[in-house]
């Protein structure tokens, strides 16, 4: 059946429990980096399907274009030239939302219903509910969501939830010329990954493996990597991603504290939001926080 509102597993800033009687299959997208030629068909198909057109940028000395994710670019190819054992490898990774089982963005999001996790695993942003606070950015261990300068809403890959809802594969998957991107149930994708990993091992990639990081409960976008022991080689794919301590703290300790003891501040905070708009304070404090974290 189609995935409509009822198939929601989790909803940001919402205490109402999600309905759980229906069982839908968990889906996953598998990106086999070892057969990816970095052609950007996925980027183009993504923009075309989702009616997005980013700026025509510049060449900055690399093949990466657009140079980074934006509100209008939900996936980019990241190109890395690395030498491994005297042999040049051009590691090209399709970057975009990982659709975590335990989504930091959703946990961090204060706007009810702005971030939804469907029962099939897709984590989707609903811009009409987004207040543009940017906490999803902090919450994301993969640095994926981007806030639009035009409408102050957060955007990212939806895993083509509209296509998946009618039984189709995401646009990037369908278009992929070499079949480096596959889509199916998470179980099928793990099986396919196994086969690919065995093939890679037979070709001398002893550390080939599946990237399905457990720090975020596993993901619904997984990678087959030739060097799963060194994900950083692939344009800094995090080795052990986990939800930012800020979000964990809020969930574990600060939430009850905040709810019970700081009610007055809560009201003030809401007024602040209503009066001043969402962006200024949060962005600034976020940058500060990031800086402090990285120290």
């Amino acid at each position, binding site marked *: 059946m189609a995935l409509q509102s009822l198939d929601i597993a989790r909803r940001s800033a919402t205490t109402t429990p999600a309905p759980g009687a229906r069982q839908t299959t968990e889906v996953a997208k598998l990106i086999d980096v070892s057969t990816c030629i970095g052609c950007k068909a996925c980027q*183009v198909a993504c923009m075309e399907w989702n009616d997005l057109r980013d700026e025509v940028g510049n060449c900055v000395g690399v093949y990466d274009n657009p140079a980074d994710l934006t509100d209008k670019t939900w996936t980019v190819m990241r190109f890395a030239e690395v030498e491994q054992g005297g042999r040049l490898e051009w590691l090209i990774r399709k970057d975009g939302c990982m659709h975590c089982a335990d989504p930091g963005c959703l946990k961090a999001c204060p706007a009810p*219903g702005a971030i939804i996790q469907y029962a099939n695993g897709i984590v989707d942003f609903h811009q009409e509910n987004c207040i543009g606070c940017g906490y999803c950015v902090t919450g994301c261990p993969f640095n994926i969501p981007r806030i639009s300068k035009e409408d102050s809403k957060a955007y990212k890959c939806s895993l083509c939830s509209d296509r998946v809802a009618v039984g189709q594969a995401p646009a990037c998957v369908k278009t992929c010329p070499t079949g480096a991107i596959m889509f199916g149930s998470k179980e099928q994708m793990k099986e396919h990954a196994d086969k690919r990993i065995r093939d890679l091992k037979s070709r001398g990639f002893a550390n080939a493996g599946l990237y399905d990081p457990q720090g975020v409960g596993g993901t619904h976008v997984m990678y087959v990597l030739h060097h799963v022991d060194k994900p950083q080689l692939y344009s800094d794919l995090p080795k052990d991603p986990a939800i930012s301590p800020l979000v964990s703290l809020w969930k574990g300790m600060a939430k009850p504290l905040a709810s019970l003891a700081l009610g007055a501040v809560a009201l003030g905070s*809401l007024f602040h939001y209503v009066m001043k708009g969402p962006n200024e304070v949060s962005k600034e404090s976020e940058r500060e926080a990031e800086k402090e974290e990285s120290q």
Partner: protein
Amino acid sequence: MQVTRRQFFKICSAGLGGSSIAMLGYSPTAALAEVRAFKLAKATETRNMCPYCSVSCGVLIYSTGDKSKNSKADIFHIEGDPDNPVSRGTLCPKGAGLLDMVKSPNRLKYPEVREPGSNEWKRISWDEAIERIAKHMKADRDANFVEKNDAGVTVNRWPTFGFLASSAAGNEAGYLGKKVLRGLGVIGIDTQARI
């Protein structure tokens, strides 16, 4: 894990924002989550082929309307044709972007001429364009056509005119062009096959 003062402030305000908004009436009922409507549901689907490289991938072109008399078909999405045994629904970045080729602002829409020495284009009608070009061609052909060579062999050629034929045109257009050119006695013909 260390939490700085600023982080603590942020954690609290983030949490508060969330729970407060929910508690104060911005309830989930006002925040339904439906996926974006599937935009191809009733679109007209036409089978065609990508014109770029010689893999000649199958494409499905989606246009508005149902071919009824009063609706003008407008192409709004193109994706791969899964039936095509070679491409099996895939398209490279060029093929995946075909919509923007069809819709390019740089498409030509009407005949134009740039007169000798002029600095600009001038829009003209098809009739005028065909008439003026044909006049040029006839004058050129009548002045330079060679019926016999020096040895008296019939050669019937027009050596002062050339034609570069498109490899993006269909077989039918290519064949007709070739037939017409030979009919006129043209020998200067080439195509991208060589380039």
